[in-house]
């Protein structure tokens, strides 16, 4: 658990170097890219630099940032002056819902398809499943998202709502926002999980203890659950942990495709506006979440596999 803290510090240093040290002056970055129409006069620049603490030496700037983050204060957006904390709290739940729902969808689809495909190896079902897996592994989630929007607009004259609606406010409207991106992301992840489940299940089915169990005359549920299912699950969970990194990145593009007001579209928007305070905090947040998920994956091993114990 404690290993995560030095990693997180390393992550924050890398972000700091990428955002402040390489581009030099973050304020110069704003005008230089030609992305914004805003031109600051030199007095305005000096004032902004002072209020943002950019006149201090780099190590002080870094320590100030870390101190703020430690207190749960992410500073203010450079453009709207709105506290970034507020933005994260408002948009975060939407992205979290999408990601969790996508993982649920991918497990509900991927694990049964992978297991059945392995148990009924070289049947029509197996061949169809493998074609589907190859296909959905190659389809980018943001393109699938665009197609879902296109079809729903044309066929049902419906498009996902654009305003932020939380699940505790209006569950029905919230579901309309979340379901599309979750499906678009979930299907791709399902293909990855089905592929992993299939190859692991085939390995497990070839093991000696499975042959022994079959020789003892075990069949059906008694054979399947303890012998095959549990042993297949472990590598599949590992894959999920790694794949969730892809999922977190994928939410950015997929949210943009649907126009969903989540953290991902906030990141894209702040990149376009060169809102560097926002960018560095959001990237840190994404990395922290990814580290936390990988920790959870490690812990879940011990719960599923009695052979693994944490010393």
């Amino acid at each position, binding site marked *: 658990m404690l290993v995560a803290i030095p990693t997180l510090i390393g992550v924050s240093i890398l972000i700091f170097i990428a955002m402040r040290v390489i581009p030099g002056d973050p304020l110069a970055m704003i005008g230089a890219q030609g992305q914004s129409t805003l031109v600051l006069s030199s007095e305005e620049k000096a004032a902004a630099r002072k209020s943002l603490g950019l006149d201090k030496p780099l190590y002080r700037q870094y320590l100030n940032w870390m101190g703020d983050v430690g207190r749960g204060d992410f500073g203010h957006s450079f453009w709207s002056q709105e506290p970034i904390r507020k933005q994260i709290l408002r948009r975060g739940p939407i992205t979290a819902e999408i990601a969790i729902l996508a993982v649920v969808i991918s497990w509900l689809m991927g694990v049964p398809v992978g297991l059945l495909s392995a148990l009924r190896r070289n049947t029509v079902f197996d061949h169809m499943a493998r074609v589907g897996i190859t296909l959905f592994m*190659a*389809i980018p989630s*943001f393109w699938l998202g665009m197609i879902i929007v296109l079809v729903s607009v044309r066929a049902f004259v419906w498009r996902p709502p654009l305003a932020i609606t939380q699940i505790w406010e209006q569950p029905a409207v919230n579901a309309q926002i979340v379901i599309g991106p979750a499906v678009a992301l979930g299907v791709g992840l399902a293909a990855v999980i089905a592929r992993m489940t299939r190859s692991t299940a*085939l390995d497990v089915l070839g093991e000696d203890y499975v042959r022994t169990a079959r020789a003892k005359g075990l069949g059906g549920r008694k054979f399947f659950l303890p012998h095959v299912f549990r042993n297949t699950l472990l590598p599949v969970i590992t894959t999920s942990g790694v794949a969730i990194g892809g999922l977190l990145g994928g939410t950015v593009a997929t949210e943009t495709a649907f126009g969903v007001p989540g953290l991902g579209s906030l990141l894209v928007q702040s*990149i376009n506006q060169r809102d560097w305070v926002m960018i560095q905090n959001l990237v840190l947040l994404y990395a922290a979440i*990814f580290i936390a998920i990988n920790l959870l994956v490690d812990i879940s091993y011990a719960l599923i596999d009695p052979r693994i114990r944490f010393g």
Partner: protein
Amino acid sequence: MVSVRNIASDGAIQTRPERWGTKVRGIVRRFARMAPLGAIAAVFLLVLILIALFAPQLAPYDPIQTDYAATQQAPTRQHLLGTDHLGRDVLSRIIFGARVTLLVSLASVVLAVAIGLIWGVVSAYAGNRVDMISQRMLEVLMSFPALILAMLLMVSLGSGLPTLVIAIGIAQVPLATRITRSVVLTVKERAFVEAARCGGATSGRIMLRHVTPQCVAPMLVVATVNLGAAIFAEAALSFLGVGVPPPTPSWGSMLGGVLAQSFNPPWWLVLFPGLAIASTVMAANLFGDGLRDFLDPRVRQR
């Protein structure tokens, strides 16, 4: 030099060096037999490379030439895949877009493998402190979701073709380094390394001449397996507007540009660039799987 023996008509045994062409043909034939899907995918990728190379000859129109008399036209005989909101020919843009996709993905994969190879060999061979520090650095890199790390690097380094290659390449370095390291850790205990050391070879020479060649085959697999991910990353970054700057056509930015125009875009502007991305990613994945089966039959997928 490998040589084959030929028995001439008079019974004399002649030796002639085997030509490169025959050798390559043999490898290709074995690959096609072992991984037929991978071979088909390889042909697809080769055709795509040819299309990219001869894009100016193949494309019916200039990909960045706007034509306000023919905006947002559905596919017709003049414009086989239609035109976009500025009247640019979609087919021509897809043909030229293959250049960006292939250039960026191939270059970034080569960059990732090159850095990973050097980093992994040095880290594993040096061991101790160096290895521990480099492992911690890798953990930091791996704590970012790949696409987020690439986006951060694009913001930091500024947009453009070289920075895109660097951003996607660095996001793939951890995997290449980890695999190289694990190969080196087993190789450096082997007898031939010890023999070389007894023979007085320096560490640098052992790393270069004895250890690194053992990592080539695994790196080839890593490179092809990563190729699909690199194509996807380029498409996603360009889609989000942090990839290749306009007006250079790229499949991802074609989709992103459509989104910027309206939420109810014409179907041909959504369908065709996406199909190009998906089919190329699929070909890269299948080729990677095939190559892995071919080079390492033990982990062969059933």
